[in-house]
């Protein structure tokens, strides 16, 4: 294996044959930049409509309580109150699986989560809602609603939920234990993947390491709270303005929960202030819709931060036990994983992706993976960046680090020895196509950071350490539509249904521009509502730049084909003679007959009229997914347990970085969110089942003062399934930080932190345990 040298900030490592690009790989200013910077972008909470009224939601103060009686009479009689609703106003949804791409749920659960009917199953569970002339009147009216609860015993940890005789979150939940039907349980699902004979392989292994890790549930922490405005039209149609990662998946969910045809619902995606997976499900939309139906006005609902923490979906916490064995050469021979995630009040923690990702970075010939989806009395978890992978990978990557220490092997060498490559089997079954796993390890090994000395600690009580970890996210493909309208002035309008949460307007426009041979600025992207574009799956699963990009390429190629016909008309030649390259049409049958794309646009009206095309894709799979390897240096104050991140380098395979600055932005953002999850972020839940730290003051996400500049190395191993080789990169980057930091702390302190967050008190306790009594 060769070692690469000369890595520096955002160096791009090119691998494999490359097409020559003009637009892709450059860094144009984002199309929505001005509006965002100047505060002109219109977010959901900014919506103003004629006759708009405001709503508020009454939420359960208890984690688990039967609703005995709700008396609405005082609230209904209050001046200014226009409508009051409870669960009794919600249609009874039919059981139906809602596959939202990164989130799978049942319509019955989706409906129950939105508003409780007979019992509240998490603190913050809506029990009633009010629409009134203004927000304050609505809030005051909530206080007039009298709810009598019968408080029930709750379960908020996985151990509590799985204990024999545990209180049941749902009396009628039917669980599946590897396909066997189980009643009266909190374990909604237990799945297993098995390959080879792990027990036999462990018996022969030279070294075995096993760790049990604990991970707290962690919130995405998007700045913009959930919001929804709905207008129930007189003809029975419904319009919803909302902050969502997927307007079509939102429409499907609403259709199932409101029991109305999807075609009667128009979802208008507003600008979105962060999602990270948390804005896929529905929360306020059905309530706003029903309130609107009742009062005849458009109704707006906006969550408070407290509600966002209590009642929307963070990523699940879990208990993950990983055991791994290697032979005398350090080659992995066997591994097992036991993954238990706390789904929250309804089934659907991301246990399947956890099983997919837990060993994806390594060749594991003999493996068994058990994963459990456990319901508990906390809000239903949601997707959070690579949903399910970070928690499970935390265990794998810390185990790998311990093995390296036991056998005295460099962690990069260990990874290069054991890394999965194209053609290898992923533990859960599929065979990898071409992937960039090895390349990210090589990129880190070749980086300046890897070669730099750690340096002396800044004071005698401080200690330094370095840690490495890898991570994987498989991503998805699925359905996207893009329409391109060519204007006479040479500018094209690109109409799409993909919510833009990370700069995808630009990264998709750039792919169209590449094909059309025009500048990114000459493509004007617009994200439109569900009545105005063909079906498009959500912005999640690292799919948008990849799949909607592919749709844009397809639409642009159709434009080129049509424009060739027009050029042939202009030149009165056969269409086959027209060539197109670098934005210029050329008549191959004549001398000096050229038309730029722009020039030809000016001739459309005289050659048959406007050109409009639509690209429609439904791509199976992501083409192998994206791997990352991160390296981190920490300094720990052994007097206080406080950790400083000194230096951080992230390498990740982007296939082809369409807009490198956005790729770097994703890598940096994922690393920073991971640092938060590693060091301080957690749900502190009291004995009463209530989250105690539901504010940004006490839910300690890192601030800009808590993280260094994140160095990035973009690795480019082309994705065979995308015309330009693009891979989705938005999620893998949150996988390595937690184990990388645990590994660095192990290096600095000689103790292994296996529980997230690795907060100062926990570090001090570990140091004291190490020192002995």
């Amino acid at each position: 294996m060769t070692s690469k040298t000369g890595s520096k900030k955002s160096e791009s490592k090119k691998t494999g044959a490359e097409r020559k690009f003009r637009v892709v790989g450059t860094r144009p200013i984002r199309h929505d930049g001005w509006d965002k910077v100047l505060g002109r972008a219109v977010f959901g909470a900014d919506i103003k409509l004629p006759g708009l009224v405001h709503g508020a939601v009454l939420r359960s103060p208890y984690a688990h309580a039967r609703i005995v009686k709700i008396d609405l009479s005082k609230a209904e009689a209050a001046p200014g109150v226009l409508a009051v609703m409870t669960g009794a106003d919600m249609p009874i949804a039919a059981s139906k699986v809602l596959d939202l791409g990164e989130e799978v749920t049942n319509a019955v659960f989706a409906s129950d989560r939105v508003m409780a009917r007979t019992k509240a199953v998490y603190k913050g569970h809506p029990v009633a809602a009010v629409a009134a002339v203004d927000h304050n009147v609505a809030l005051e009216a909530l206080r007039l609603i009298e709810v009598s609860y019968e408080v029930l015993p709750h379960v908020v940890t996985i151990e509590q939920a799985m204990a024999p005789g545990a209180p049941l979150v749902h009396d009628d939940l039917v669980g599946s234990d590897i396909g066997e039907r189980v009643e009266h349980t909190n374990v909604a699902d237990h799945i297993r993947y098995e390959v080879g004979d792990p027990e036999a392989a462990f018996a022969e292994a030279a070294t075995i390491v096993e760790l049990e890790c604990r991970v707290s549930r962690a919130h995405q922490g998007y700045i913009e709270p959930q919001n929804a405005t709905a207008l129930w039209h007189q003809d029975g149609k419904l319009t919803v303005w909302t902050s969502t990662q997927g307007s079509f998946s939102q429409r499907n969910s609403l259709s199932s929960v409101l029991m109305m045809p999807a075609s009667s619902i128009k979802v208008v995606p507003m600008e979105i202030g962060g999602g990270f997976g948390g804005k896929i499900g529905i929360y306020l939309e059905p309530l706003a819709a029903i309130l609107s139906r009742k009062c005849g006005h458009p109704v707006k609902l906006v969550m408070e931060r407290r509600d966002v923490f209590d009642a929307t979906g963070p990523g699940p916490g879990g208990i993950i036990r990983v055991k791994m064995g290697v032979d005398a050469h350090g080659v992995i021979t066997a591994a097992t994983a036991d993954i238990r995630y706390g789904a929250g009040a309804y089934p659907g923690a991301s246990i399947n992706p956890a099983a997919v990702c837990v060993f994806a970075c390594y060749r594991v010939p003999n493996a068994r993976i058990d994963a459990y989806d456990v319901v508990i009395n906390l809000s239903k978890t949601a997707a959070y960046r690579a949903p399910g992978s970070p928690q499970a990978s935390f265990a794998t990557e810390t185990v790998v680090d311990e093995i390296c220490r036991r056998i005295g092997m460099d962690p990069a060498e260990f990874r290069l020895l054991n890394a999965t490559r194209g053609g290898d089997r992923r533990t859960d079954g599929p065979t990898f196509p071409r992937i960039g796993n090895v390349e990210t390890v090589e990129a880190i090994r070749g980086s300046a950071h890897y070669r730099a000395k750690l340096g002396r600690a800044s004071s005698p009580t401080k200690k330094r350490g370095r840690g490495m970890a890898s991570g994987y996210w498989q991503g998805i493909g699925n359905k996207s539509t893009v329409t391109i309208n060519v204007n006479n002035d040479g500018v094209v309008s690109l109409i799409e249904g993909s919510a833009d949460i990370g700069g995808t307007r630009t990264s998709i426009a750039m792919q169209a521009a590449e094909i059309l041979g025009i500048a990114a600025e000459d493509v004007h992207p617009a994200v439109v509502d569900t009545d105005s574009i063909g079906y498009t799956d959500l912005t999640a699963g690292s799919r948008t730049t990849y799949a909607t990009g592919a749709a844009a390429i397809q639409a642009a190629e159709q434009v080129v084909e049509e424009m060739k016909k027009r050029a042939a008309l202009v030149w009165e030649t056969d269409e086959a003679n027209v060539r197109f390259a670098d934005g210029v049409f050329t008549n191959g049958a004549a001398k000096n007959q050229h038309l730029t794309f722009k020039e030809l646009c000016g001739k459309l009206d005289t050659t048959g009229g406007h050109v409009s095309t639509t690209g429609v894709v439904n791509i199976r799979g992501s083409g192998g997914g994206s791997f990352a390897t991160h390296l981190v240096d920490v300094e720990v104050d052994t007097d206080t347990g406080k950790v400083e991140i000194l230096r951080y380098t992230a390498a990740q395979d982007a296939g082809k970085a369409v807009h490198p600055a956005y790729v770097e932005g994703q890598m940096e953002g994922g690393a920073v969110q991971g640092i938060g999850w590693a060091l301080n972020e957690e749900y502190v839940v009291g004995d009463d089942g209530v989250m105690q730290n539901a504010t940004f003051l006490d839910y300690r996400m890192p601030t800009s003062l808590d993280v260094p500049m994140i160095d990035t190395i973009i690795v480019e191993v082309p994705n065979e399934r995308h015309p330009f080789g693009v891979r989705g990169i938005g999620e893998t980057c949150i996988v390595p930080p937690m184990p990388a930091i645990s590994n660095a702390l192990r290096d600095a302190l000689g103790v292994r932190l296996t529980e997230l967050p690795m907060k100062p008190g926990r570090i001090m306790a570990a140091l004291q345990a190490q020192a002995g009594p």
Partner: protein
Amino acid sequence: MHPFRYVAAGSIDEAVAVLREHGARARPLAGGTDILAQLRAGRFELDALVDVKGVPEASALRLGRDGLDIGAAVPCYRIYEDPDVSAAYPGIVDAASLIGGIQIQSRATIGGNLCNAAPSADSIGPLIVHAAAVTLAGPAGTRTVPVDSFCTAPGRTVLGEDELAVSIHVPRPPARFGAAYERFIPRNEMDIAVVGVACAVVLDRSGERIESARIALASVGPTPIVAAKAAASLVGGPPSADAFRAAGEVAADEASPIDDMRGTIGHRRDLVRVLTRRTLERAVQRASGGTASGNTGRGTR
């Protein structure tokens, strides 16, 4: 939110009159960085807020021969931006320059920090070790209360329903005085003290002996704790690392921390030990000249 009346008082009398009228359902408003957030979170409801920023006595910052008077409505930035105040009152400046961030400091007041009486309040310990006293005004006139007996429980003080704080008097420190405040937070800004320790020392002429000392602890009890035994252990002895360490041990015993979402009892006691040591070192350094200036800037956390 329950609708409330907003009164911008122009004098002490006017403020007191409104407080009297509404009793427990009215409160003074200084920077509003605590009370507005608390109202919005529904912690309590009020019928009136009395803005005291327009009360002249409450908005004055005066450094005189007898000491410093900080109007109860003076925002933090005015304190640390005054070079003379910074030089003479290092402990208070340490606190004023780390409450919240720049935006918060341009509104938040020491008076509000004190009257809010959070166990974690950053300025109260420094006020205590600087031997400060607060002047209160009510219908019966004014009275003065030492800061170390002002807080009675989390969020509770000796203030009557119809009283307001007008200003805080901090005596001029004697020669060879040094003070420091440090807190521990898991992040580097925008966080609440898991533990805070304020120390003040006066050295004797030789600089080899501690003449007097005061230590106050934040976030390790229902009110700020005066660690009198720890301070006493230093008096008459040398300002040595051993003495500081021993004082830290005593202070850890004097603390009565609880386990909560921000920290555990064990971790908090550890932090009292460490921060007592560290702040004593800084205070002594400042007392012995050289870096006596308290103007450590916003870098000190």
